[in-house]
C-alpha cells in the first residue's frame, strides 16, 4: 500500500514538473497548429513537413505543427468541427472559394485586422488574379498558396497522325470542334477508339463549365458572392456548346466524363485533348508516354479560365501573439523562393510574379517551357465560382451540368432550375 502511495506521489510530482516546464516553454514559444489538405499526388505531406521544419529553424520562437487533414472538403470539415469543439487550428489551407463560408461561420480573421495598414503592402506581391477571390468587403481574408487554373493538354502524336500541326492547340471553339472531328478515330465497326476532346463533368463540373461561360463572355456571380447568373443567355449557350461537343459534333464521349480518370484516358490515348487543372502538370509530365502540348483554353468571345485552389486562412480564436506568428508563417511559406519551389514540386502556379524571376524557377521554365502557360493565362483569369453557402450553390450548378450532359434536361431548363435553387439559398445574404 505504501509502495503504491509512493508511486502515486512520484507520478504526481513528475506530472507537475512536466506541466511547469511546458508552461515556461509556452511563455517563450508560440505554438501554431497548421491544417493542410493534399489534393495532388506525390509525397506532399513530406514536402510540407520539410518546409515547416525549415521555417522553425529560421524562427526558433515559433513552433508549427503541420496536420494533414485529408482532401479539401475534409480539411474544411475538420477545421469547422475543431472550431465548434473550441480548438480550431491557428492557420489552415482551405479553398479560396470557402472564403464566404468561413466569414459567415465567424471562423477566420482578416489580415487587415492583424497587421497595421502600412504592413498590408505585402498583398500586392501576389498575382492580382489570385487576390480577387482572396479579398472581399475591402479586406484580405486569404493569401494564395496552392493555386491553379484550367489548361488544355494535347497529345502531339495524335495531332501528327491526324495531319494537324502538333505545336498548335485549338485557339477558339470552332477550331476545337474542327480539330476534334479530325482527332476522333473510329475502328472498322464504327466504335470510337480515340475521342477528340474530354472536358470532365464530375468532381469539378462547375469549374469546367465556368471556363466555358467566361470564354463566352459572362461571369457566373457578383463580387459580393450574393448573386449568381447561371441562366444568363451566354451561360446557357456555353452549356449548349458543352452538350453539342458530345451529341452534335460527336467529338467527345456522351454522358458524364469522370474527373479522376480523365488524365489516365489521356495517357492511354483514349482522348487526344483534355482540359484539366495545371495541378496535373507534374503528373502528365511523368506519366504521358508521348510528347504533349500545353496551351491556354480556346476562346469564344474572349480567352479565359477561372482560378482555383487553396489559400492560407488565419483563425479568429488565436491570440494576438499567435495571429502575428501565423502571419509570419504565411508570409514565409508564400515568399518568392518558397512559392517557386512549391510550384516546381507540385505543378501549382507559383503565386507571385517575383517567384518566376528566381533562378530555380527560371531554370525550370527553360527546361520545361509549358510550365509558364498557366502563369500567362492568369492575365485572362476570373475568380472561381464562390458565393455564400458555397457548397450548396455549387452543388445546384453541378447537378444542372450533369443533367444536361446526360441528356435528362435541356441546358436552358437545367440552368434555370439551378439559378432558382441558388436564388433560394442566397436570399438571406441578399442585403
Amino acid at each position, binding site marked *: 500500500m505504501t509502495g503504491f502511495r509512493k508511486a502515486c506521489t512520484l507520478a504526481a510530482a513528475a506530472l507537475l514538473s512536466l506541466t511547469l516546464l511546458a508552461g515556461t516553454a509556452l511563455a517563450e514559444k508560440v505554438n501554431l497548429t497548421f491544417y493542410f489538405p493534399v489534393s495532388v499526388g506525390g509525397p506532399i505531406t513530406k514536402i510540407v513537413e520539410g518546409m515547416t521544419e525549415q521555417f522553425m529553424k529560421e524562427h526558433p520562437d515559433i513552433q508549427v505543427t503541420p496536420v494533414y*487533414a485529408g482532401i479539401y472538403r475534409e480539411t474544411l470539415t475538420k477545421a469547422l468541427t475543431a472550431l465548434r469543439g473550441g480548438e480550431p487550428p491557428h492557420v489552415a489551407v482551405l479553398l479560396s472559394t470557402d472564403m464566404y463560408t468561413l466569414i459567415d461561420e465567424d471562423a477566420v480573421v482578416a489580415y487587415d485586422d492583424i497587421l497595421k495598414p502600412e504592413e498590408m503592402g505585402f498583398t500586392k506581391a501576389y498575382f492580382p488574379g489570385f487576390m480577387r477571390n482572396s479579398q472581399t468587403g475591402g479586406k484580405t481574408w486569404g493569401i494564395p498558396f496552392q493555386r491553379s487554373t484550367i489548361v488544355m493538354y494535347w497529345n502531339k502524336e495524335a495531332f501528327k497522325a491526324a495531319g494537324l500541326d502538333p505545336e498548335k492547340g485549338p485557339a477558339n471553339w470552332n477550331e476545337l470542334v474542327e480539330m476534334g472531328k479530325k482527332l476522333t478515330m473510329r475502328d472498322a465497326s464504327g466504335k470510337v477508339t480515340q475521342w477528340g476532346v474530354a472536358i470532365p463533368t464530375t468532381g469539378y463540373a462547375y469549374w469546367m463549365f465556368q471556363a466555358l461561360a467566361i470564354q463566352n463572355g459572362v461571369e457566373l456571380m457578383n463580387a459580393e458572392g450574393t448573386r449568381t447568373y447561371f441562366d444568363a443567355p451566354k451561360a446557357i449557350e456555353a452549356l449548349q456548346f458543352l452538350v453539342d461537343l458530345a451529341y452534335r459534333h460527336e467529338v467527345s464521349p456522351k454522358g458524364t466524363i469522370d474527373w479522376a480518370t480523365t488524365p489516365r484516358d489521356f495517357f*492511354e490515348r483514349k482522348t487526344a485533348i483534355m482540359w484539366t*487543372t495545371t495541378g496535373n502538370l507534374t503528373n502528365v509530365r511523368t506519366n504521358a508516354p508521348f510528347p504533349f502540348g500545353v496551351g491556354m483554353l480556346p476562346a469564344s468571345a474572349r480567352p479565359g479560365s477561372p482560378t482555383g485552389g487553396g489559400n492560407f486562412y488565419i483563425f479568429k480564436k488565436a491570440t494576438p501573439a499567435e495571429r502575428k506568428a501565423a502571419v509570419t508563417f504565411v508570409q514565409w511559406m508564400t515568399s518568392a523562393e518558397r512559392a517557386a519551389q512549391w510550384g516546381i514540386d507540385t505543378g501549382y502556379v507559383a503565386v507571385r510574379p517575383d517567384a518566376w524571376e528566381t533562378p530555380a524557377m527560371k531554370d525550370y521554365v527553360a527546361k520545361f517551357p509549358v510550365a509558364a502557360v498557366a502563369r500567362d493565362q492568369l492575365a485572362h483569369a476570373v475568380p472561381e465560382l464562390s458565393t455564400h453557402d458555397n457548397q450548396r450553390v455549387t452543388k445546384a450548378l453541378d447537378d444542372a451540368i450533369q443533367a444536361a450532359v446526360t441528356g435528362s434536361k435541356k441546358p436552358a431548363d437545367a440552368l434555370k432550375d439551378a439559378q432558382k435553387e441558388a436564388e433560394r439559398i442566397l436570399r438571406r445574404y441578399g442585403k
Partner: protein
Amino acid sequence: MSQTNIYDSRGLARVLDTAAAWTLAVLWALPLLYAVWTAFHPSEFSTRFTLAAPLTLDNFRAAWDAAPFARYLVNTVLLVTLVLSGQLVLCTLAAYAFAKYDFPGKGILFALVLMQLMIMPDVLVVENYRTMSAIGVLDSTLAIGLPYMASAFGIFLLRQTFKSIPKELDEAAAVEGASTLQILWKVYVPLGKPVYLAYALVSVSYHWNNFLWPLIVTNTTNSRPLTVGLQVFSSTEQGVDWSIITAATLMTSGPLLIGFLLFQRQFVQSFMRAGIK
C-alpha cells in the same frame, strides 16, 4: 449417405442455386481481383489486361513510402483491440442487466439505448469532439475509440442472446452457490460465444475501416489509423493513380483479409449458430 438433407435442392433448382452462388461470388471478388491485378503491374496496364504484362512491386514501394504505414498499422490494431475489449465488457454487463433484472425505468432506458441505433454516428461528430476535447484526450487512440464503446448494437444483440438462455441453467448455478458475476461468466458468456464472435467480426471490420471520425479527432502519426494514411492517395484534384491506390488498399486491408480467411470456418459457423437460434 443414407440421410438426405432437406435443405439440399435437386435437379434444376440445384443448378440454379449453384449458378447464382457463383455469380454472386464472382461479382463480390471482382474488385479484389482487379486490385490484385493493378497493384502488381505497372500503371500502363491498369486497364489493359494482357498476360504479357510485366510484374512489379514498385507500386507497393511507392505506397509504403508515401505514409508511415507501419505505425498506422500498429495504431489500427491497438484501436480495434481497445474498442472491442471496451465493447465486450460494457455490452455484456449492460445486456445482462437488461436481460435478467427488473428495475424501475428499465423500459425507458432500453428505449434510449435502442435510439442510439437510429442515429448516424456522423451527426454526432461535433458533439463527440467537444466531449473528447473536454476530457482532454484529443489526438489519441482512446479518443477514436471512446464514443463507440457503449455500443447499442452490442447491447441489443447480447440481450436477445441472454434472454434466450433457459432460466433453469441460471437457477442451477445459483443453487450450486455461484455469485451473480460467476453465473454471468460461467453460464451466459460461454453460451453466447457464437454471438460474441459474430459481433467481434462486425465491430473489428467497422473500426478498421472507419475514416471520418479518426481523421477529425487525431492530428499526428502517433494515433492515426490506416484509413487516414490511405486517403493521401485519393488526391482528387489530380485524378487517381489506380496502381498505387490498389497497392495501398491491399496493404492496409491485407491483415484483415488474411485473418478472415484463416478463421473463415469459425466465423461462418458462428454466424449460422447465432442466426438459427
